[in-house]
């Protein structure tokens, strides 16, 4: 069953097409990523799915139901967390969680809240007001609330912003464990590529309201057709090497006496062939670094308007 099914979803603000005819579907138990530069329309998409925002047109189905007519069924089984909106600021963490515990009619509320606080290491802070917390702590509070009702479907809109690497790692572990144990479905956005790569099975790459491509991180990276090779050169022969490479039809980006950077297609054997020729010609290297394409490269390329 598709837990999320979106067809031709659109949302405009005046002239601006924030989300422009996007379609995708997410299977039960899938960790699905929405990736794209600022303003791509990721949050707008999520907000339409959670019911915060009314769509202009298109079709949405969640957990096999129409979220408008089966509002209660759907909303009780989903939740959302983001780092950008903390819970009510003048309430303490525990007070906030109590309110949402009742809202979702959670059995054994206090016990459940204790569990969540422990899991996110917020025990000692539970009687502090949200407004006094650091951004990383607020993020964890939002995640606590997000998992409070044991959702089958969880929307995470940049929910790991501001976490230190240790807590971020723990959080990813908690999320993965949760997904595995409950077979829960996630729709996830983040600016941290490594996180998206680690967590998400498939990724929809968005830009300017459109989905450019939906695929695994591995396949998406193939969209970046070039990789970068950086060399440290002995005996100050940088200029010579540059001449040689240009003659071979290689694109040299940077060259000086002791260092040189060039680009080669990321697929095929071009890089090995070139390196072989360089060695055969007798150039001696002091350093070698091959930068394979990352999601970051794709991200930057799309954000700067390249293909």
């Amino acid at each position, binding site marked *: 069953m598709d837990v999320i099914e979106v067809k031709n979803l659109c949302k405009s*603000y005046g002239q601006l097409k924030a989300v422009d005819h996007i379609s995708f579907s997410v299977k039960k138990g899938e960790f699905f990523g929405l990736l794209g530069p600022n303003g791509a329309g990721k949050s707008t998409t999520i907000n339409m799915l959670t019911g915060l925002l009314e769509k202009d047109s298109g079709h949405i189905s969640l957990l096999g139901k129409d979220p408008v007519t089966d509002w209660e069924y759907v909303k009780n089984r989903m939740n959302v967390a983001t780092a950008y909106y903390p819970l009510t600021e003048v309430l303490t963490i525990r007070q906030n969680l109590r309110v949402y*515990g009742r*809202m979702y009619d959670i059995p054994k509320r206090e016990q459940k809240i204790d569990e969540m606080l422990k899991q996110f290491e917020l025990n000692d802070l539970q009687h502090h007001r949200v407004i006094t917390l650091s951004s990383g702590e607020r993020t964890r509070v939002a995640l606590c609330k997000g998992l409070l009702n044991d959702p089958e479907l969880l929307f995470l809109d940049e929910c790991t912003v501001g976490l230190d690497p240790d807590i971020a790692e723990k959080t990813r572990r908690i999320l993965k464990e949760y997904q595995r144990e409950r077979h829960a479905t996630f729709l996830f956005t983040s600016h941290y590529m490594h996180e998206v790569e680690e967590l998400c099975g498939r990724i929809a790459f968005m830009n300017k309201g459109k989905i450019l491509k939906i695929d695994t991180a591995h396949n998406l990276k193939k969209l970046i057709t070039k990789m970068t090779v950086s060399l440290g050169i002995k005996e100050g022969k940088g200029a010579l090497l540059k001449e040689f490479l240009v003659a071979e039809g290689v694109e040299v980006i940077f060259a000086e006496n002791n260092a040189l950077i060039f680009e080669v297609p990321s697929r095929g054997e071009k890089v090995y062939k070139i390196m072989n020729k360089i060695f055969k010609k007798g150039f001696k290297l002091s350093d070698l670094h091959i930068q394979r394409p990352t999601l970051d490269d794709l991200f930057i390329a799309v954000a700067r308007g390249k293909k």
Partner: protein
Amino acid sequence: MKWHRVKALLLKCYYLTINSPDRLCDMFYWPLIDLFVWGFASFYIKDISDVNVLSALLGGIILWVFVWRSSQDIAVYVLEDFWGKNLYHLFSSPVRFSEHLLSIITFSFFRALASGTFMALIASLLYSFSLFSFSPLVVGLSIFLLSLFGWTTGLFVTALIFRFGQRIQVLAWSTVWIIQPFSCVFYPLSSLPVWGQWIARLLPTTYIFENMRAMMLGHPVDYSTYAISFIISMIFFGIGLVVVHWSFQSARKMGMLEKGD
């Protein structure tokens, strides 16, 4: 409409209140100041003119608190979610807008009741004034009708908040005071200019305070005016519900709930 969600929202209002000195001041501090000022003013008036205005003024102040609190509390507790950046989580939860409004209206009613009781108590201690020199039925009817109108103005302000955001928040505190001069809280309808009287007749509040003064002068209770007040209130309340619903829908279209602004 689900009771457990209304309870959750009532709990949130309760926490907002006990966590915030502002919300506690609303209930006791300002009403108390009002009582002092008007009580002492009426002593002075009595000294210089032999007219006893104490009862009329105190009755007016205590009853007015139900309009004041109901109206302002609804707007302020709606604004709390804007200030606290809580709209995002609130409206992505299963809560319905009607449950949100019902909880706030209920909570504001109990706050008004607490304020009113507190004032009645102080008035009887300081000035030996008893609200229950009127029949309990009249007091109950007045409280209900005045609260109903307070909720109505609260709904209109709420509608404006969801339409225009926090920048119009000053209306939360000011709206009810535009209505007060025309509600004949402290003086009879006849003391208003003619155009003012027309406005006053359109307000359900006027009838309550007119009746109160009539009873103080020993006239019998005129229940028909309560009926008029009720009908006018219900018309305004109905319109208020429609407008606030429409405004909430427009907030969902414009993305107000995600931005909270």
